[in-house]
């Protein structure tokens, strides 16, 4: 009886431990959606063509890294929506940067933290290349 109860408890614990942590996947999917929106917002244009093309390529790299991280964490990259064109690129980059910073608490492995550090730095860099002012706390929500 006691042994059975212990096994039952052990089984419950095992089931709990086996369940994938959903928070990392959810956070990564939000980041992926935000970066896909950046790519869509950086539509080819005659104005600043070289810069926009370069930023679009950089955002594409971030999308690919995030998609791989979603898969590695047990998620499905296609669950993150594709971005829609017509959005303001600077606003899209600010949203992506905030999504990356917001994700930090949910990304706990060394690989995920290295990834988010790269994503934060990349999005922040691209923001100033687009003409945004440098800030002390980019991506930090204040409201």
């Amino acid at each position, binding site marked *: 009886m006691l042994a059975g109860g212990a096994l039952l408890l052990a089984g419950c614990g095992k089931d709990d431990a086996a369940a994938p942590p959903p928070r990392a996947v959810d956070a990564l999917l939000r980041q992926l959606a935000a970066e896909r929106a950046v790519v869509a917002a950086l539509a080819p244009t005659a104005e600043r063509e070289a810069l926009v093309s370069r930023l679009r390529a950089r955002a594409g790299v971030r999308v690919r890294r995030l998609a791989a991280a979603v898969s590695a964490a047990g998620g499905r990259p296609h669950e993150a929506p594709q971005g829609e064109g017509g959005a303001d690129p600077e606003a899209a980059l600010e949203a992506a940067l905030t999504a990356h910073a917001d994700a930090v*608490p949910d990304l706990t492995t060394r690989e995920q933290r290295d990834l988010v550090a790269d994503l934060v*730095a990349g999005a*922040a860099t691209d923001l100033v*290349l687009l003409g945004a002012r440098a800030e002390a706390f980019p*991506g930090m929500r204040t409201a």
Partner: protein
Amino acid sequence: MRRRDLVLAAAGAALARPTAAAAALEGDAAILGRLIAREQAAAYAHRAAFVPELAGFDAHEAEHARALRTQLAALGREGPAAPRTAAELDSPARALADAAGRPAILDTAIALEASLVDAYRAALRKLAEPSIARTAASILAGHAQHRTLLRLEAGRDPVG
């Protein structure tokens, strides 16, 4: 300030947890102390080597130090004292403070900001408290922006 209140509340909640978080918070406190020292040194160096291209960077570094100090205080610790002379600076900050002439100032400022990005990247691997880790990520973004603008001013590839 709202951000400060949020930081204090989050750190206080973490402290209320028993032993599980104690070791992690101890580690966070040590990291915060080192980052505060780096930021204070960077602020000193940017002030010492002032050129128009760096205007405002010293204020950003000082804001970083204040935000980190608030979080460290919420963990019940005091941060390091601010440097009073260039001799007290870490190596990358000392190089900027000692630089003479615009090219040397830009070169050493780029190296300083790059070293700060690296420091926060390393810190993010270890920081446990969510609000502290999130703040560190935002500060990392700020240093990445500084590095980019400085590289542009120096005529380098901004993302090279």
